[in-house]
């Protein structure tokens, strides 16, 4: 690897060939402000905030787009640079709804942060923002045109990672807008509500829908028993909302914080993740034995369900009929737990904390109402919303003592927690299916070939002499590839796990902002550490799950299971 020597602000620094000035400056301890730059995306260089002086160049150069060349002399803070940068920020603010105090991203906005850091005290320009109506048509995401800085990060995310291209630039010049075609509402186009756009938006142009107030209402309503479930991915990321390093496992603090907010019982989605494995594992084996539709596809990712219903409805029979762990929990909460504690289902207010924005859509589906009237999961809060709610309550997250979940839905295994990472559902399923079929104990519980960020992963498992091929895909552009494989008859797999979001749920649309592979890898690492740290690591060994079957469900795929834990899908092709 060739090393290049450059001078930045009079300091010599050596960097690998191909390094941008932006990244080289980091090595010298200088972060050049930037807005449109994203480490995992193609360089756009349109915001022009990161411009610097390069000796010999007539104009200022974008540091994100300029590669270091041997002997380059760079200055990042001359008056020429500072004036240009300030003016660029002021120009952005002049076409921006500048009411920060009332903004959803107040204190969490890159534009605000840069303006504050570089000392912008006013925008000297005339404000020309066009005051457009906010698009609230999607159940999960909100679009506010008056905040958009046209950086294009959302466009790239939706086009390259998710392969959907819902958003694009419309028009030219100062009429340019980032919207779905024809400026249609998000709720009217084939958006899957995955929220990946909101994870990379540096301002408040795209944000998650906020449902915090509804939860406060319920908690303050003495007539309601308010219970909460927490997804596996939340416990390895919630800490980031409070300044912790990505990849810190904060399960105990998370439980304690929820109790502080006033939830009556704090349960764990990992419990129903274990339950899902039992149901889905048996469903897979039944299909293999009875010649059912194969490959079978997992069904716990609602963004993925939105995708297959809208884009490949002809392949719906491949989906497992199992509900997601969130919805299995909701069904049990209203259809079983209520009775167990002597309450009516409508007295239970069921909240879930999810890394996912599409879960808001899932909870609202007509099929997710066991009594036909009331939603099984009343409100879904994303990880980001929980962070906000805790701040609203003045909870000092870092100082909390660790606490444990409540019974009966607080006990889970390592197989449940790995649902949060891409490949986790597959690995959890294999841990159980292997032992059920072969009657033998697995030597090693780690199926490494299904772990990691590669787009489509494959594995082969020897189940008592039969070689079973499985595959794992994450992000919808890879899901599409798998769909095309199945359509062409070339998918020789028995079972495929598909996650809508890059990295799996830890990369979900409701997670702490950033959306970089660096963040995803740290959270994935935490998921597998959490798995290793649990005493039980196979779903079928979960005593609470066993008890549920003994006391209530009777058997996997039985009548009660079908009524509460399974669902059907709709052709929603647009």
């Amino acid at each position, binding site marked *: 690897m060739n090393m290049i020597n450059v001078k930045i602000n009079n300091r010599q620094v050596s960097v690998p060939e191909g390094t941008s000035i932006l990244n080289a400056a980091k090595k010298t301890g200088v972060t050049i402000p930037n807005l449109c730059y994203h480490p995992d995306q193609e*360089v756009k*260089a*349109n*915001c*022009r*905030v990161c*411009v610097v002086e390069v000796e010999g160049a007539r*104009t*200022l150069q*974008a540091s994100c*787009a*300029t*590669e270091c060349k041997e002997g380059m002399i760079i200055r990042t803070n001359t008056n*020429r640079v500072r*004036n*240009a940068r300030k*003016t*660029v920020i002021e*120009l*952005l603010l*002049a*076409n921006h709804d500048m009411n920060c105090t009332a903004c959803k991203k107040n204190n969490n906005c890159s534009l605000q942060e840069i303006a504050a850091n570089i000392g912008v005290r006013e925008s*000297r*320009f*005339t404000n*020309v923002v066009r005051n457009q109506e906010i698009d609230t048509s999607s159940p999960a995401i909100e679009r506010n045109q008056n905040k958009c*800085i*046209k950086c294009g990060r959302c466009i790239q995310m939706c086009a390259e990672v998710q392969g959907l291209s819902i958003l694009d*630039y419309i*028009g*030219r*010049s*100062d*009429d*340019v807008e980032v919207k779905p075609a024809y400026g249609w509402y998000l709720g009217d186009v084939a958006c899957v509500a995955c929220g990946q756009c909101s994870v990379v938006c540096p301002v408040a142009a795209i944000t998650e829908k906020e449902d915090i107030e509804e939860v406060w209402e319920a908690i303050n309503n003495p007539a309601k028993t308010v219970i909460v479930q927490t997804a596996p991915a939340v416990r390895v990321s919630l800490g980031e909302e409070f300044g912790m390093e990505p990849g810190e496992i904060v399960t105990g603090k998370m439980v304690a914080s929820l109790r502080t907010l006033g939830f009556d019982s704090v349960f764990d989605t990992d419990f129903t993740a274990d339950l899902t494995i039992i149901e889905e594992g048996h469903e897979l084996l039944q299909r293999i034995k009875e010649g059912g539709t194969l490959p079978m596809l997992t069904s716990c990712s609602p963004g993925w369900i939105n995708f297959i219903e809208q884009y490949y409805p002809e392949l719906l029979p491949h989906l497992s009929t199992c509900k997601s762990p969130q919805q299995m929990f909701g069904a049990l909460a209203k259809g079983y737990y209520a009775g167990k504690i002597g309450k009516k289902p409508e007295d239970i207010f069921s909240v879930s904390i999810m890394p996912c924005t599409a879960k808001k859509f899932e909870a609202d589906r007509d099929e997710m109402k066991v009594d036909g009237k009331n939603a099984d999961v009343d409100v879904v809060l994303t990880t980001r919303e929980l962070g906000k709610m805790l701040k609203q309550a003045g909870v000092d997250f870092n100082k909390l003592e660790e606490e444990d979940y409540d019974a009966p839905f607080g006990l889970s295994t390592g197989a449940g927690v790995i649902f949060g990472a891409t490949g986790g559902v597959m690995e959890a399923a294999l841990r159980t299916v292997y032992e059920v079929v072969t009657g033998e104990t697995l030597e090693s519980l780690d199926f490494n070939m299904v772990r990691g960020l590669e787009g489509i992963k494959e594995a082969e498992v020897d189940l008592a002499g039969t070689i079973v091929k499985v595959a794992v895909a994450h992000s919808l552009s890879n899901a599409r590839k798998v769909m095309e494989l199945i359509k062409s008859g070339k998918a020789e797999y028995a079972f495929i796990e598909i996650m809508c979001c890059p990295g799996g749920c830890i990369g979900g649309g409701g997670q702490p902002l950033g959306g970089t592979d660096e963040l995803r890898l740290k959270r994935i690492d935490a998921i597998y550490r959490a798995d290793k740290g649990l005493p039980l690591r196979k779903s079928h060994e979960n005593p609470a799950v066993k008890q549920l079957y003994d006391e209530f469900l009777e058997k996997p795929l039985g009548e009660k299971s079908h009524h509460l834990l399974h669902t059907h899908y709709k052709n929603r092709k647009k």
Partner: protein
Amino acid sequence: MSNDTLSKKLLTSRFGKIKADSIDDYVSTGGYSVFKKALSMSGDDIISEIKTSGLKGRGGAGFPTGLKMDSVKQAEGTPKYIICNADEGEPGNFKDRLLMENDPHQIIEGMIISAFATGTNHGYIFIRGEYIKSIRTIEIALEQARVKGYLGDNILDTGFDFDIVVHTGGGSYVCGEEFALLVSIEGKSGRATYKPPFPTTCGLYNKPTQINNVETFCNIPHIMDMGGEEFSKIGTDSSKGTKLVCLSGNVVKPGLYEVPLGTTIRSIIDDLGGGVPNNREIKMVQLGGASGPVIPKSMLDLKLCVKEMNGNDLSFGSGAIIVMDERIRVLDILKRIIEFFRHESCGKCTPCREGLTQMLILLNRFIEGTATKQDLALLDVLIETMGQASICGLGQAAPTAIKKVLKYFPEEFEGRIHSMDSVTV
């Protein structure tokens, strides 16, 4: 000075003398004989001839053509591309349209020679969508050239394959900018992108690409015919050859004139253009087009020559000369210019997209007489920022006219600052 000594017909020598849709007319006046000669030369020798000629790009940027061709020849990566930029959208310019409509084969011959020299097999002519007649004329000419075996596989049994495809622009001035042009050829919106790398090493589909203006390619056959040395005797030290000048605005005889580089602006306006109608005085002249500088009449003795222009912090760009007489209101003209750029900006980068809107707001204040001293300072800030931080030439050059008016006609702005002290009775 008589018109005969002033103008020099090289590129326009066939205008009016041949039928544009007749390849036989072109051939009978010596056309395609040069390229046949060139096919027996080496690429390096051809490029050497172009370098000796001193030919610089005629689209406005003025980059040495020989150097550009050399870069493409040396660059790694195949296939290579050659693109003729016929997206003539700069207000005041019509030379490329007239070249295409009157002598299309001249362009094709120039492209074939260049492609041969650089080892390129794929060519494009990017013609703006509004130029429907040009598109038709060029397409007919290309087909004629193919029939004669001057384009296609194994041209004249030399083993050299080369063909040209016409790409139609969708109506966007910014697509005349190299990078927006490349993106448009790929079928996308013409949003400029950052550089480096430059098209010569990383152009169309990331392959080495030579992009040159119509007029530039038209010079190639003449250079190869007379020799680079002879060509370099026309013009000045820093500007060799002839220039097609588009004269328009308030003149008696607007039109296309071909003059040796080094001719003064005044002689073009007075001797060729017949001066200003009704003997009016010239207020200001814009050089190159909307993105060019404006100069007062006191500077009209400047020569169309890179050295002299640069020495005065000016540029003649693509060679258009727009004459404006004393009746015009300078700020109205500036408003027209900025509105043009606002309409044509691709909207990708902040300084250009937001800057042009803000510039218009400020200009309107000066026009209405409500501007303050702060507005003048803010105008300076905008000019500086756009010039320094825009991604491409459109944003960088858009404030040129305003900048020059502030320098040469400061009273137009200072005289319209609303003074809190002034009392109107």
